């Protein structure tokens, strides 16, 4: 970050042509990247804004979201106070994991300790543009997430700012987990961070990503992000996203992992925060023998609306995917989960599973659960399931009969409901983080 603009510099409002040009001018980027941004911006302009008539937005009303209220990410340093607001989170993650990168209000505030990377390249994206252009030219918004995917992917591809690159060379096993933080402070309104993870053949790594807000009150915030994962043959990746924005932030992201031959991915999602989320999460089993395990923990309160669209795309034979999403709902909140298992003609011997369970903890909460199967091969085993229910009064009575107060009983039962997804998570601190977050949200009204 060489820019010395102050945070008060006003970029033109909205994502207009003028705003885009000003955004480009403020960045000193190579021609290939500028060309790609221009192409993405042209796509963004060509796309129609989603309406309730679009299948993916039918259950997710974003009429209250006004893109014109926001503008491109500013090229500003984060203030000391803003940075300090995320120190506790940084300390906590540093105590559990090797090293990490942190952005606050879209600007890099901490960089990884090169001595703790275990042979991986882990840098903020600004640095990656300068030092690793060949990786970015090949993978950044080219095949995994594409500007043509939808209007928000195009918006992200035109304006992405901040984020990180994790690159693990062939045969390198990074033993200790790495982490990244994206924070939004009282000064900030926008995060357009991008994450790119590339594992070469036989590489191994763990990456834990967290998003968080601090002291923003009711000011509207916006995150439009993307995560791209490319896994070479026989590589192994553990990936964690914990989304914990505050209840006035709009969260839009597209996350896709393409998994090569005999490679495996364990992906854990914690969907806790935001005012409204619309997330597309996809695993693509692209090489023979590839496997993916996806774990989702969702908990909503108040008037939160979280819409998660998952896709398990089996393109090659002998591939396995196993998805379990569990949600708890309180207040007037709403969860929409729509999952699809897709098995292409050539993907014989596929074994795919998806399940979504929702625990509805209030009269006014609503859960929509739409599992799906589209199967064009015949030698497969594909199953899915969905359940919805509330805390069983008999169980509560049973606890009360043993002297456990009602609140504690409900807490125990909720804990038990999430237990089988926690059990699948192989990182203790992640399990603890999710448990604590769910317990805290359960206590909120």
């Amino acid at each position, binding site marked *: 970050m060489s820019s010395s603009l102050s945070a008060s510099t006003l970029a033109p409002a909205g994502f207009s042509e003028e705003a885009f040009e000003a955004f480009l001018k403020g960045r000193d980027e190579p021609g290939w990247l500028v060309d790609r941004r221009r192409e993405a911006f042209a796509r963004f302009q060509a796309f129609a804004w989603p309406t309730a008539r679009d299948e993916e937005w039918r259950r997710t009303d974003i009429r209250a979201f006004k893109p014109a209220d926001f503008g491109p990410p500013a090229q500003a340093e984060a203030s000391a106070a803003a940075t300090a607001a995320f120190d506790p989170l940084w300390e906590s993650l540093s105590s559990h994991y090797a090293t990490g990168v942190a952005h606050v209000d879209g600007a890099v505030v901490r960089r990884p300790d090169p001595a703790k990377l275990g042979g991986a390249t882990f840098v903020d994206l600004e640095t990656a543009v300068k030092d690793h252009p060949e990786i970015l030219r090949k993978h950044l918004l080219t095949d995994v997430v594409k500007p043509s995917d939808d209007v928000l992917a195009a918006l992200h591809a035109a304006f992405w700012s901040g984020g990180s690159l994790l690159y693990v060379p062939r045969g390198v096993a990074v033993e200790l987990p790495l982490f990244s933080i994206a924070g939004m402070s009282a000064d900030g309104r926008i995060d357009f961070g991008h994450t790119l993870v590339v594992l070469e053949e036989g590489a191994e790594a763990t990456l834990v990503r967290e998003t968080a807000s601090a002291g923003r009150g009711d000011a509207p915030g916006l995150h439009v992000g993307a995560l791209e994962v490319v896994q070479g043959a026989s590589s192994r990746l553990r990936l964690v996203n914990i989304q914990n924005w505050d209840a006035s932030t709009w969260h839009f992201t597209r996350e896709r992992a393409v998994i090569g031959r005999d490679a495996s991915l364990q992906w854990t999602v914690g969907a806790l925060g935001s005012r409204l989320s619309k997330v597309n999460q996809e695993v693509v089993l692209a090489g023979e023998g590839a496997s993916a395990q996806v774990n989702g923990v969702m908990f909503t309160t108040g008037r939160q609306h979280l819409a998660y669209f998952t896709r398990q795309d089996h393109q090659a034979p002998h591939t396995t995917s196993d998805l379990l999403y569990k949600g708890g709902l309180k207040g007037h909140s709403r969860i929409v989960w729509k999952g699809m298992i897709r098995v292409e*003609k050539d993907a014989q011997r596929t074994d795919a599973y998806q399940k979504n369970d929702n625990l509805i903890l209030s*009269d006014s909460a609503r859960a929509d659960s739409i599992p799906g*199967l*589209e*199967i064009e091969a015949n030698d497969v085993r594909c199953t899915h399931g*969905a*359940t919805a229910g509330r805390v069983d009064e008999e169980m509560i009575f049973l606890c009360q009969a043993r002297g456990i107060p009602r609140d504690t009983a409900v807490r125990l039962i909720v804990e038990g409901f999430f237990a089988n997804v926690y059990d699948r998570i192989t990182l203790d601190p992640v399990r603890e983080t999710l448990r604590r977050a769910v317990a805290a949200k359960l206590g909120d009204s």
Partner: protein
Amino acid sequence: MATDLNLQVAGIKEDDKYGFRDSDANYAFKSGKGLTRDVVEQISEMKNEPAWMRDFRLKALEIFRQKPTPTWGGELAGLNFDDIRYFMKATDRQGRTWDDVPAEIKNTFDKLGIPEAERKFLAGVGAQYESEVVYHSLREDLQKKGVIFVDTDTAVREHPDLVREYLGTIIPIADNKFAALNSAVWSGGSFVYIPAGVKVDIPLQAYFRINAENMGQFERTIIIVEEGAQVHYVEGCTAPMYSSESLHSAVVEIVVKKGGRCRYTTIQNWANNIYNLVTKRAVAHEDAVMEWVDGNLGSKLTMKYPAVYMVGKGARGEILSIAFAGQGQHQDAGGKVVHAAPHTSSRIISKSISKNGGRASYRGLLKVAKGAKGSKSNVVCDALILDPSSRSDTYPYIEIDEDDVKIGHEASVSKIGEEQLFYLRSRGLSEAEASTLIVSGFIEPLVKELPMEYAVEMNKLIQLQMEGSVG
């Protein structure tokens, strides 16, 4: 190898299949092709309908024109509304006894293989021939109990108040494009009224078939089950093979009042060139039970999702559906249950088999409205895919707006288990025999719910579908 099941079942050799069509010359009246105001007015005039019915049709025509063709479900691009004849009348007479039925029509029954003994046994055969019901015979004791079982055209004439009270109330004209189409051009179908407390203990049956190229068939069936009454209505469909597109678009409206029970069983086996687009819906009041048993074979594309709206507390809805998609076929079928009252329960069981490039899709909705406390629902979908070129999809929509519920959905897609096959073959069965046996076992939960003669027919159809299928 596309076998024309309908012919096989009717005991007709492939070579004779064009002999199976009665000549068009014997129709008393045929409308021109296409759907215009004139055609609709002509239909109404031919039937000597009262003004209210004519107005109902004309209003529906307007709505049909405004409604978009659905973009979900199956591929409807090949359906040309202007290339279909919307009305034909085979005979001007309503047969009251078997002797009155014209020989040509009896002949068609023979070919369809409806056994003589069964005709005698049936409570009443509403045999729909070219959208006109030509034969009805009700056992006298049913008539004495006040049961009404006539074709819907007759009901308009003889029970206009009842028809007006219910027509278009369960499925409004504007519900969807095909409900509007049916409302504009409907002809035939059954009108069933079971008075309070009357239990009809033998199934009421009706047969339908299409018998002219590009001839739409648009029956409208209304079933009213009064408090504490009970009925089982059975409909079966078969159709000979033709080379050009054809359309079947029915509407079935059912009301089951407090404590009543209704079961509606369908085995549909349309020719492979027919679009089968049907809207079926039942409203179940307090403590009422509605059961749909729905078997779909044949057709080019079927889109059919029998629905139960549970509007009274304690109501129950059950949907059992089976689909067999063969070469060039897409079965997009399933069910809808809406819990709109407390302590309602529902169950959907769906089984599908796809073979020779066929596509079977389950599409369902399970909705629990706010306030429908203590609702329970369970949905199970199982699919078998018999070869690499076939396809299976599951699209279950689940919308829960209430916390006090117990909801479960599960689905599985698989192929026939190698171990089961091996076991049966080691007992001396051929691969084809073993596969047929396994498939028969797979659909058994549905078949066991069918009346005896339908169960036999269903098993025979599956056998024919499976012939020469495994290689």
